[in-house]
C-alpha cells in the first residue's frame, strides 16, 4: 500500500496506525524510516510532484520482493509543499526476523531514491525550484536522445 498525503505526513498518527494494524500478525520486526525536511541552504521547505500510476507499479514489484522473503512493506509520501521539520516520506518493513527487515529497508529506500517517479523542488523566496543537482536519472534514461 502507498499512502499519498497533500502536504506533510501526520507521522505519529501514521506510524501508530501501521503498528496497530500489524502488531498481532506475528511479525517480530517493524522498522520504519521517516524522512524529515532539514533546515539547510536557506530553504523554506520542499515540494513534490508524484506520478502515481508508475509509483504504484514500482511499489508492487517491491512488495513482491518482500513477500518472497516473508516480509511486508508500507509507504507514505507527500505531494505539494512540506515545510521545515515536517516529514515527507515514511517507509516501513514488517518481517518475522530482524535481519530480513534491516536488509530490505536498506535496499528498498536506495531503489526508491533512484527509481520512484517523484520530483523534488526547493521552496526558496516563495519560488519552487527543481532540485536537479540532487536528482538521479531513472534506469533506462536517454532512450530518445
Amino acid at each position, binding site marked *: 500500500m502507498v499512502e499519498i498525503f497533500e502536504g506533510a505526513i501526520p507521522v505519529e498518527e501514521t506510524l501508530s496506525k501501521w503498528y496497530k494494524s500489524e502488531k498481532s500478525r506475528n511479525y517480530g520486526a517493524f522498522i520504519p524510516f521517516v524522512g524529515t525536511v532539514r533546515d539547510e541552504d536557506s530553504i523554506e521547505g520542499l515540494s513534490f510532484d508524484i506520478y502515481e500510476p508508475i509509483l504504484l507499479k514500482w511499489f508492487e514489484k517491491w512488495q513482491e520482493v518482500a513477500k518472497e522473503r516473508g516480509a511486508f512493506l508500507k509507504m507514505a509520501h507527500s505531494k505539494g509543499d512540506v515545510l521545515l521539520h515536517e516529514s515527507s516520506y515514511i517507509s516501513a518493513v514488517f518481517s518475522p526476523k530482524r535481519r530480513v527487515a534491516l536488509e530490505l529497508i536498506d535496499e528498498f529506500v536506495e531503489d526508491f531514491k533512484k527509481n520512484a517517479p517523484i520530483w523534488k523542488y526547493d521552496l526558496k523566496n516563495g519560488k519552487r525550484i*527543481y532540485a536537479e543537482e540532487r536528482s538521479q536519472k531513472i534506469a533506462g*534514461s536517454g*532512450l*530518445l*536522445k
Partner: protein
Amino acid sequence: MIKVEFLGPIGKENLEVEVSTLSELGEILSKDDEISEWLSKCAIAVNDEIVFNKDRELQSGDKISLLPPVCGG
C-alpha cells in the same frame, strides 16, 4: 494518435502526435527547443511501463510519458 505527457519539472502541455515507433517520436521531440535538452535525462514509459527499446512499435491510443531525474523522500 499517440499522447505524449511531460512529467514533473518539464512543465510542458501534453502533445498528440502521429508516429509508429519511439524512434520517430525522438526525432520529433529533438526538434523542439523546450524538450530537446531533456531527452538525454529522461526515462520513457509506454502506457505507464518504463521501456528500454527505442524500436518499439506504437499503436494509436498509446500514452508516452517522459520522466526526468527523480528525487523522492
